[in-house]
Every structure is written in structure tokens, then in C-alpha cells.
């Protein structure tokens, strides 16, 4: 029974919290009310059975609690007024009752509010997983290898920050919108990447987290179908997720893209990724950073073998990406592509411009890429030193072993 209530919650949490937030204009309070409804379900459903429309049941309970809460506040404010100590008279907001026709707009409002830039990235991630993904604090804690109390505190603080800052429950329009949307996409992609290349811990990949992010992306694509970057992000995640099975070796070690068994790539996800990329491109130019990254991933997916990879195309996509969204990490990837398309010497030239880049200091992929290019140029001793340095810098155990193996293989 507990497991079926969990399942209902996962499917309904976002809609219920969003609908209640429309009533109470505060997503923190809305989430508490929704949790109250969940507790009521946990108490009553084992006796009564799961109702025919469990989502409507939970929403009805939540609504009742919301109305109680609003009335209590009204009474309290009224009393304060009577004593004459009222500092701030606020007319109680008319309860705006959620309905099915608007629920999707409310969910989109919830997405933008939970990912508001006033919150730290960690807080946005926690709120998004909790409110839109329906995860428990325990599940979020496990996903990010932290303690449950840390996550709980993070969520409490985040809710307070939103209330204190008076963040309205709305979808931003106008000049703000693009920046706010990229804040949302950043959160989803961060969740995906935490699952795809776990930054810490003994597992290199945490598939559940990838799937949570993919699901959030797919939901967002339906809520905001006119945003090319949303489809771009979905395309990117679908195609990257298609390689999940191929990118882990038998003893948990990472397998780099060129060495992957392409037969293990999931054709369905690749197909879905291509479809999402087409949707993005149909919405017109200019191509944003996620659409471009998806185009790069799609180019890899189209190559039947590693040797068939169209590195020239990929290098030029990276060049566009570097101009649209300049970053040292993009430059590093571009160097890899250029090294494949136009030879290791050209790639090394680009990497060498990055060695003093402060933001890449401590980034293990810089020495790892440099080591690869040096090895291909026959500069073995230098290459070995770079792989060893990369191994020192990574916090991920299987990846560290793989790097040390490469160093050792150079003799």
C-alpha cells in the first residue's frame, strides 16, 4: 500500500503543489499543505483503499486545508486589528481555486518559482526534485550523497528565502524570461549530470537521477513547447542517456565514447533525441547552447563506428557553441574535436591556451585531454605525467583507475 501511495504521489505531487500554490501564493506553504494531504492519504487509504481518482482526492484535502489556513489567517488579522496593534493590514487574498484547465500553467509557474535565481543552485535542485519530481528528502539526500537533515534544512531555508524575497508565483514574461528559463534548464541538466557522471562516490553513473532529470525535461517540453532550448536540452539528455549501458565497463569503469560498443546504445532514446532536436530546430534560429550541444551529440549518434565520426562537423559546431556560450570547458571540448578533425598538433595548440585558465585549475579533464593529444604526438613521458595528474584530480574512483591504467599503458 505504501508503495502505491508513493507511486500516486510521484505522479501527482507537482500538480497538487502547483494548484495549491495558486490558492495560497506561496510554494512553501503549498508544499506543506500537499504533504498534509499525503499524510491523510497514508492514514486513510490503507483502510478505505486507493480512491478512483487519487489525484483529485489529494487535491480536495489540500484545498480544504488551504481554506482553513486562509480563514485562520483572516481571523488572526481581524483580531490584531481589534486590539489596534495591527502593523500591516493586508486584505486576505481571495482563494483562487485550482482547476484542471489551468493546472498546467500552475505547474509551469511552480517550475519557474522553484528554480528562481534568488536561490542557490543546490537549493533550486532540492526544491525541483522535491516539488516537481515528487522525491522525498531521503531520496534526494541519497542521490547527492548527503544527509537527510542537510537536505531538509536546505529545503526549509529555500522556502523561507522565496517567501522573504516575495517571489511571485508566476511565469516570467518579457526580458526576464530568457534568463529565468536558462536557470530552469541549468537545474535540470545539473541533476542529469550528477546522475550521468557522478562527481563523487563509488558509482560512476546513477541512472535514477538521469531518469528523474529526463522526466522533468520531458514534462517541461510539453509545458513550454515553444521554447527551442527546452527541446534542445531534452534532445541532449535523450541522446546522452542512450549511451548509458555502453559507457560503463564490466568492473564499473567508464568507457570513453570512441571505445563504446555502439550496439549497446539505446535506439529508442536516440530516436527520441533526434525528434526533440527537430522540434527545436523547427522553432528557428538562432541555435542556443543546448540545441548546439544536442546537435553535437546527434552527430556522434549518427556515426556507425567511431571512425565514421564527422569530426569536422563536430569541430565547427563547437566553434559556434564557443561563440554563443563561451566557456573554457567548451573550448576544451572543441580542442578534442579539432584534434580529431585536423590532427593532434592543432588540438594541442588550443589546449595549451587553456592551461593557465583559472576556472580549469583542478579540472581533471584538462590534463586528461592534454595527455591524450601528447600521446598521439608520441610525446610519451609528458603524456604519462598528464594522465597521472588527471588521476590525482578526479574524485571519482573508477575514473581514477581508468586514468592510471592509461598512464601505465604508456610504459
Amino acid at each position: 500500500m505504501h508503495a502505491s501511495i508513493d507511486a500516486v504521489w510521484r505522479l501527482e505531487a507537482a500538480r497538487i503543489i502547483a494548484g495549491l500554490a495558486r490558492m495560497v501564493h506561496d510554494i512553501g506553504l503549498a508544499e506543506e499543505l500537499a504533504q498534509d494531504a499525503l499524510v491523510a492519504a497514508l492514514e486513510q487509504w490503507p483502510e478505505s483503499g486507493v480512491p478512483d481518482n487519487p489525484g483529485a482526492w489529494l487535491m480536495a484535502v489540500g484545498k480544504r486545508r488551504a481554506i482553513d489556513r486562509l480563514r485562520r489567517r483572516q481571523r488572526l488579522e481581524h483580531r490584531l486589528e481589534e486590539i489596534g496593534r495591527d502593523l500591516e493590514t493586508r486584505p486576505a487574498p481571495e482563494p483562487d481555486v485550482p482547476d484542471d484547465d489551468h493546472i498546467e500553467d500552475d505547474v509551469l509557474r511552480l517550475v519557474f518559482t522553484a528554480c528562481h535565481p534568488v536561490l542557490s543552485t543546490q537549493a533550486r535542485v532540492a526544491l525541483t526534485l522535491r516539488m516537481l519530481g515528487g522525491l522525498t528528502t531521503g531520496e534526494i539526500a541519497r542521490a547527492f550523497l548527503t544527509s537527510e537533515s542537510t537536505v531538509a534544512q536546505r529545503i526549509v531555508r529555500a522556502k523561507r528565502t522565496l517567501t522573504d524575497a516575495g517571489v511571485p508565483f508566476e511565469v516570467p514574461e518579457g526580458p526576464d524570461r530568457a534568463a529565468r528559463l536558462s536557470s530552469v534548464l541549468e537545474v535540470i541538466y545539473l541533476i542529469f549530470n550528477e546522475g550521468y557522471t557522478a562527481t563523487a562516490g563509488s558509482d560512476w553513473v546513477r541512472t535514477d537521477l538521469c531518469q528523474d532529470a529526463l522526466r522533468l525535461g520531458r514534462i517541461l517540453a510539453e509545458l513550454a513547447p515553444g521554447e527551442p532550448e527546452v527541446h534542445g536540452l531534452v534532445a541532449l539528455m535523450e541522446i546522452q542517456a542512450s549511451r548509458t549501458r555502453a559507457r560503463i565497463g564490466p568492473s564499473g569503469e567508464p568507457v570513453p565514447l570512441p571505445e563504446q560498443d555502439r550496439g549497446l546504445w539505446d535506439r529508442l532514446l536516440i530516436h527520441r533525441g533526434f525528434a526533440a532536436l527537430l522540434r527545436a530546430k523547427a522553432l528557428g534560429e538562432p541555435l542556443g547552447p543546448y540545441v548546439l550541444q544536442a546537435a553535437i551529440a546527434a552527430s556522434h549518434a549518427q556515426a556507425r563506428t567511431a571512425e565514421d565520426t564527422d569530426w569536422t562537423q563536430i569541430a565547427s559546431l563547437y566553434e559556434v557553441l564557443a561563440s554563443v556560450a563561451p566557456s573554457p570547458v567548451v573550448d576544451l571540448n572543441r580542442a578534442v574535436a579539432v584534434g580529431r578533425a585536423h590532427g593532434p598538433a592543432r588540438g594541442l595548440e588550443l589546449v595549451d591556451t587553456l592551461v593557465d585558465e583559472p576556472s580549469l585549475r583542478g579540472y581533471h579533464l584538462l590534463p586528461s585531454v592534454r595527455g591524450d593529444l601528447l600521446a598521439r604526438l608520441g610525446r610519451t613521458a609528458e603524456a604519462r605525467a598528464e594522465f597521472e595528474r588527471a588521476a590525482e584530480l578526479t574524485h571519482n574512483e573508477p575514473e581514477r583507475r581508468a586514468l592510471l591504467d592509461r598512464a601505465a599503458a604508456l610504459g
Partner: protein
Amino acid sequence: MRFMLMTTDNGSADQKQDESMFVEMGKFIEEMSKAGVLLATGGLEPGGTRIVSSGGKVTVTDGPFAEAKETVVGFALIEVRSREEAIELSKRFWAIVGDGEGVIQQVFGPGDPVPGN
């Protein structure tokens, strides 16, 4: 986790398939897409072509088939976090369709351990 939700038909029951059901079904499919769980869905031709391999010999027989045998008539491939979630979605499907039978089976996807390992 991926699951294949299938509806089966043993040829005995009169499947009611009026227009309103198709409208409801369309809405349900849209809802599953919006929930981010639907990967693919489709209906299957009744009967189909049967193929049997025996002793190195492959026999192909075209339908329709005289004997009533349970066949899959529709499917939805979904990606969810648990079997319970698949069951919950399936319940919603049957609430629309009414009487009938189906089966829910996990599909081993990119993130799952290869069966047997």
C-alpha cells in the same frame, strides 16, 4: 525503469470501441506524455502473421486464425520509477477502457542490469 503495458484480446469479449472512448484515450495518452512517462505507444493489427521455428524449419502462417488465442492488441512503453507507478497508470487506462485484460512487464532498458548478470 521501463514497462510495457499491453492490452490483450482473447477474441471472446466484445470490445466496446465507440468514439467517446477514443477521445478519452487520446486525452489519456496526452496526459502520459505531459507526465513525461510515455516513450511510445501503438495499436496492433488483429491476428497478424504467425511464425513458428521448429527443427530448423520456419513456418509462416497468415491470420486470421480460427482458434481463439490471446493476442496483444495495444501497447504503451513507459518509463517510470517503480512497478507501482506502472500499475497506477495502468489502472487509469482501464478506468477509461472498461472491461478487458492486460499485462505489465518490465522492459530492460539502458539503465538496468542485463538480466542474468
